[in-house]
């Protein structure tokens, strides 16, 4: 797998403007194209400037590479830029390297697109021109967003040239989307989304029209799946699949994939089988709901729902306890007074809700005693390999989520990666990993005499 050290991300707003005499006339398409052509000229002109966020660095990419900082020249490696960027913690200009922190992926360098209005090419005195034709004036801010993955020794100049090319291509893509979805004088804003595809494609950008839901863009995705040779049975290019940049916080405040901060147990001859993709950690006391003592299965179900939402299978939000209970009433599994109660649910109810609210089917695995779980290595390994969804397990008086196993086919040794919904604290990653609320457990973790039901959600075959 190609290792990339940096992602250079350039964002900026360009205003698209044009005047249409007759929005439904044949001329309008060429007028629109002309405006996009003007914008493409603008980004290849000498006036565009990249400013590196949180730094004094300004770069003029179209003037044979000039920068506002003497030590950054066309020969500079792109990694040199880091010494100029002020990190959020403290005023030190040096890049902070935390040696004991697991490498959390590539460093993101954020840049902004600006235009110089000084140093003009010409010297014409100002004039005022009045046009007295009735026209439709169209104005639309285009949210440009380009990203390039590079290694640390790549030249800064090459990165900047690459970003200018990316801007050009994005404008061309936006023009296509605008023309395709335009109805008369109604224009939809073209929005760029980044996706991290399996190599060799890597980080790509797709422009989708705002306001058109994923369900109506099926044909577009089919084309792209063909173009990038992606499997046709799982989503890669829905808006929810958009690449999450390492430096961006999640606005909803839930922790994502706390398990990646753990080191798997070192078992001889064993292989690692883990949940695929991204889930949110749901647990007791969140969302101002005091479900301490009764809500553990609900929370595990929420974690599973968050997985389906973030992999792009559903657009609905993670259900609340009430919505979960209502779903069970709706399918006839519970009486109406169940809603608002503190009654426990089990794997069967989890399966029913996943089906009712998300359209997701699940397999149920039954184990007559906890000690038997140690023999289910093959089934669990297969599940994580093919489906890769989190597994809800209920038994004794507890419910948990299984996120993966380390299992040896030869010796049968097994460890379980457990996400515990019984945690009542705040979203503190350190505590959660240190105290084992997300942690690797051995077969002794289970109540050896209780029986267990496992709910293994299946991926719908769709893009």
């Amino acid at each position, binding site marked *: 797998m190609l290792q990339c050290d940096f992602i250079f991300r350039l964002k900026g707003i360009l205003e698209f403007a044009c005047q249409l005499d007759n929005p439904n006339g044949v001329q309008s398409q060429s007028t629109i194209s002309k405006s996009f052509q003007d914008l493409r000229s603008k980004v290849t002109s000498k006036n565009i400037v990249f400013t590196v966020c949180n730094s004094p660095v300004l770069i003029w990419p179209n003037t044979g590479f000039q920068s506002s900082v003497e030590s950054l020249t066309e020969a500079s490696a792109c990694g040199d830029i880091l010494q100029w960027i002020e990190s959020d913690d403290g005023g030190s200009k040096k890049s902070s390297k935390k040696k004991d922190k697991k490498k959390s992926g590539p460093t993101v360098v954020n840049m902004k*697109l*600006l235009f110089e209005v000084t140093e003009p090419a010409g010297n014409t005195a100002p004039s005022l021109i009045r046009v*007295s034709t009735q026209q439709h*004036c169209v104005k*639309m801010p285009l949210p440009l967003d380009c990203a390039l993955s590079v290694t640390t020794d790549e030249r800064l100049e090459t990165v900047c040239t690459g970003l200018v090319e990316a801007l050009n291509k994005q404008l061309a893509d936006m023009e296509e989307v605008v023309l395709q979805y335009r109805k008369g004088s109604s224009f939809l*804003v073209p929005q760029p989304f980044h996706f991290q595809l399996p190599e060799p494609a890597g980080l790509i950008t797709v422009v989708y029209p705002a306001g058109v839901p994923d369900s109506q863009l099926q044909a577009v995705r089919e084309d792209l799946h063909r173009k990038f040779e992606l499997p046709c049975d799982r989503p890669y290019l829905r808006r929810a699949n958009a690449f999450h940049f390492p430096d961006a916080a999640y606005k909803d405040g839930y922790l994502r994939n706390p398990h990646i901060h753990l080191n798997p147990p070192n078992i001889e001859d064993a292989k690692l089988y883990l949940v695929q993709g991204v889930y949110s950690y749901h647990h007791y006391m969140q969302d101002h709901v005091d479900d301490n003592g009764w809500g553990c299965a609900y929370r595990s179900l929420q974690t599973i729902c968050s997985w389906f939402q973030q992999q792009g299978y559903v657009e609905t939000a993670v259900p609340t306890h009430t919505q979960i209970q209502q779903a069970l009433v709706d399918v006839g599994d519970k009486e109406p007074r169940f809603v608002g109660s503190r009654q426990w649910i089990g794997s069967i109810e989890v399966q029913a809700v996943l089906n009712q609210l998300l359209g997701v089917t699940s397999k149920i695995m039954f184990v007559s005693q906890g000690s038997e779980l140690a023999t289910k290595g093959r089934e669990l390994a297969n599940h994580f390999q093919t489906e890769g969804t989190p597994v809800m397990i209920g038994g004794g008086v507890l419910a948990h989520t299984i996120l993966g196993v380390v299992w040896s086919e030869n010796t049968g040794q097994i460890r379980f990666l457990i996400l515990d919904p019984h945690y009542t604290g705040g979203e503190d990653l350190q505590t959660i990993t240190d105290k084992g609320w997300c942690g690797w457990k051995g077969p002794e973790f289970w109540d050896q005499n209780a029986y267990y039901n496992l709910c293994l959600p299946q991926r719908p075959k769709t893009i």
Partner: protein
Amino acid sequence: MGRSYFVDEAVEEYLVGIQTAPGSCVTGLLAGQSSPQRDFVVLAVQTPHRESEGQPKASRGVSPLDDIDVEWVTEHAKQVSRMLPGGLSILGLFLVTPPELSKDAQNALKRLIFAMDKYITKGRLWELSEEDVTDQVTLHICSKTKKTVCKTFDVKDPKSSAKPADWKYQTGVSSSWPMLSCSVEVDVQIPMTGSSSDITDKCMKDGLRRWAKQIEAACCLINGRHALDDSELVSGQNPKTTHRQTLPARIFVSDAELDERSSALVQLCSGSVKVRGVVHCRAYIHNNKPKARHAAQAIKRDIINTVCSRVEMFLEDLLINEGKSSLFRCTIASTTNFC
């Protein structure tokens, strides 16, 4: 606790040399630059005589103070403020009166100063920031004794009362002030919404204000360095030298603001106005430890003021031309007017 005005000696000479007819008053403007700590006055100019018929007012039994042509004074102030380079603005008024009118001078000055500020700032495209000084100075001079009384009013507060201020003369107040300069390419398109193709004030104002906001929010380099924070403007100049340094400024704008709309803004317009061309701007900044961002603000405001004044003049011209010829009233097909 009052403000301190450091006034160039040339202003003192000018004020001393003003001739007044016996019993009459003379008004005039004071221009310079304000900073949070102190103010600098570098120019004084008398209100020009208005050509009008009629006898000298005093003979009709009206006090010359009441007879001051407020409209004329404020119009003069507006014209002068348009001509001032960036960094300089009208700081106040002076009033020369004979000794017998001295006691009523303060009231007259207060009336004038508020009226003038209101008139000059009407139609301004940029907003005052919290740090901007809103005090204007009034200087009363007795024509017989040449004694001066200096007070300030906070023109933000109509109820404010006169506060005492210091008035000190110095040599070469502005002689070594650095000057920022730049040439700016302007390309603004303003749609005329509304039914008629007449250029409406509101449309022009809205359109120019959008552009002005871009300039205000723009990134600014002065002499190659960012003019962002509270760091001092480094002009690399020895404060003892008398040579005035020119600092090039560069302005970088972000094209537009992003809003959360998912569709374009489409307006049916009866026409549009384009303003295009290059304007040359400059701004002076005092050399008493000025901050870089104040210098950036001064040049940006000059850019906005320059374009705003130019457009006002174009529109005045258009209006005059339209009055002369009825051809321009036709709205068939497309017509373009250049000026």
